[in-house]
């Protein structure tokens, strides 16, 4: 389990992490989502004692990370796959850490196999690795101590689609066995596919968190009609906010049923009526992480009252 309370950190006079509070439960995968520079990495460094928070606390498995006697055996970390000695061979990079945490050397080979680094790759120096290979080595490193918690910063970086699917399976399986996973990404699609819960961070603050369903309490509907003017008028009369969408469609901020009723009241024929959840989540992510620059942000604020002021 991971729990933070009001984590705050200033670096170079700028507040990079501000009052970050969250909780990751065993058996779940939590996605930590935000654009580059939003404070994800700094938050993760504070979790594992590499960076000292100015205020607030971070607890892992019930205590401070640095109080864990042998942290590598309980918490697997991948903060930066490129943070390996370029002149060290792949297998040796794992073996050094295995030696430190007292893990048998055979486990190194087992993990190299698990992440798909063959004998040739294991014997090469890490400096010659591609980003994808480093990422796999990083996964092997995070899993080396057979941990209960995984903290992964941008783990999908450099993985091909096959590797991403493999990673998702691995994390799902880890969580289903009772592990706790926190992974960060700046890409919504990567997190969405595997995370049970999501936290969206922007400008150092948690802008929203919850399950996918919780984040999408508002639903949006994609509508197509031959008479677009009539549709707009009908939606306007029904008090439904309407936005132009690709291909002469309209994005209406309401449940499909509400849209259908409003259209019927005006006798507008609909050609298509579909929930637009993905677009909604993507838009939410965009709005929350770009400081409320979007013209629709007042409505978002009223829909997510807990976020009011967060984007200011």
């Amino acid at each position, binding site marked *: 389990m991971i729990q933070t309370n009001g984590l705050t950190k200033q670096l170079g006079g700028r507040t990079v992490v501000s009052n970050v509070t969250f909780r990751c439960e065993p058996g779940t995968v939590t996605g930590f989502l935000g654009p580059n520079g939003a404070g994800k990495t700094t938050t993760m460094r504070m979790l*594992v004692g590499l960076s000292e928070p100015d205020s607030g606390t971070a607890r892992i498995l019930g205590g401070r990370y640095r109080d864990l*006697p042998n942290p590598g055996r309980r918490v697997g*970390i991948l903060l930066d796959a490129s943070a*390996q000695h370029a002149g060290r061979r792949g297998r040796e990079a794992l073996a050094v850490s295995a*030696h430190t945490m007292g893990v048998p050397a055979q486990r190194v080979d087992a993990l190299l196999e698990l992440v798909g680094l063959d004998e040739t790759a294991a014997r090469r120096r890490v400096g010659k690795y591609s980003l994808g290979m480093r990422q796999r080595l990083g996964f092997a490193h995070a899993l080396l101590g*057979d941990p209960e918690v995984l903290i992964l910063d941008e783990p999908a970086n450099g993985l091909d689609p096959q590797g991403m699917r*493999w990673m998702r399976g691995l994390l799902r*399986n880890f969580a289903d066995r*009772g592990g706790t996973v926190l992974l960060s990404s700046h890409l919504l699609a990567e997190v969405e596919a595997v995370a049970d819960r999501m936290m969206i961070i922007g400008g150092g603050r948690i802008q929203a968190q919850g399950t996918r369903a919780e984040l999408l309490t508002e639903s949006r509907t994609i509508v197509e009609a031959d008479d677009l003017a009539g549709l707009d008028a009908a939606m306007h009369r029904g008090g439904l906010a309407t936005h132009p969408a690709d291909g002469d469609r309209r994005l209406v901020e309401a449940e499909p049923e509400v849209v259908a009723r409003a259209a019927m009241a005006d006798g507008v024929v609909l050609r298509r009526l579909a929930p637009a959840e993905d677009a909604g989540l993507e838009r939410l992510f965009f709005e929350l992480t770009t400081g409320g620059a979007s013209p629709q942000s007042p409505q978002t604020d009223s829909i997510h009252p807990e976020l009011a002021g967060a984007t200011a």
Partner: protein
Amino acid sequence: MSTTTLTAPIRVNTAGVHARPGLGRLVAVELRKMVDTRAGFRLQVAMVALTVVVVVVRLLVGDAAHHTFQSVLDAGLQPSAVLLPVLGILLVTSEWSQRTGLITFALVPVRSRLLGAKLIASLLLAVAMLAMSITVVAAGVLVASPGVEATWSDAAPLIGQSAVNLTAGMVVGVALGAILLASAPAIVLLFALPASWMAVVSLPVFSGVAPWTDYARALGQMTEKVMSATQWAHAGTSLTIWMVLPLLIGAWRITRREIAS
């Protein structure tokens, strides 16, 4: 990639999970790190090779009658004396320049323990290099000029002084590395600082303090001849300034600094 999934439940308390890695293990890991990278390995090969070359050349030139253990030792120790501090610097700075600190300090969050392990490991390496140098020097003397009178005079105190020389140099390297946390500036400083200091204290005004603060001279004389009590006092004050003080500053830096490279 393997599609194997692990089916065992997330572990409930296996042995070793709650045992803090002992200092001995940390020292062993640090020693391992000194030789398992290309740079570290080559530096040590270079130290051995240069020692052999220097001793052979030293024995080939000059009068064989002067080839006592004492006269060859001074030359034979130079490769280790010059390169060991560089290795000490790299042992600390590579955690930043190669960014392995993200892993190292995550596995060993109590940073003072890690610095302690690095110090002990570097001292062990210095002793190993001392043994190597003395073996090469002794073998060379035995082969090149057997039977020279008083060949082995003062061997014991000279070996002791050489041990102080190499270990002190090594600790200075670790300390400079810990202060600067960057390889290139630390290596430059390692060589530039004693020379600059020597230039400053060579001014007549400083003639009184010069011997008490000149670290290069203090270390240099250790491999030349058996030192007097006054010389030991000079060495003591110089090493306090150039070794102990930097080490304290470096330790303070490492335990507080963000590991964010």
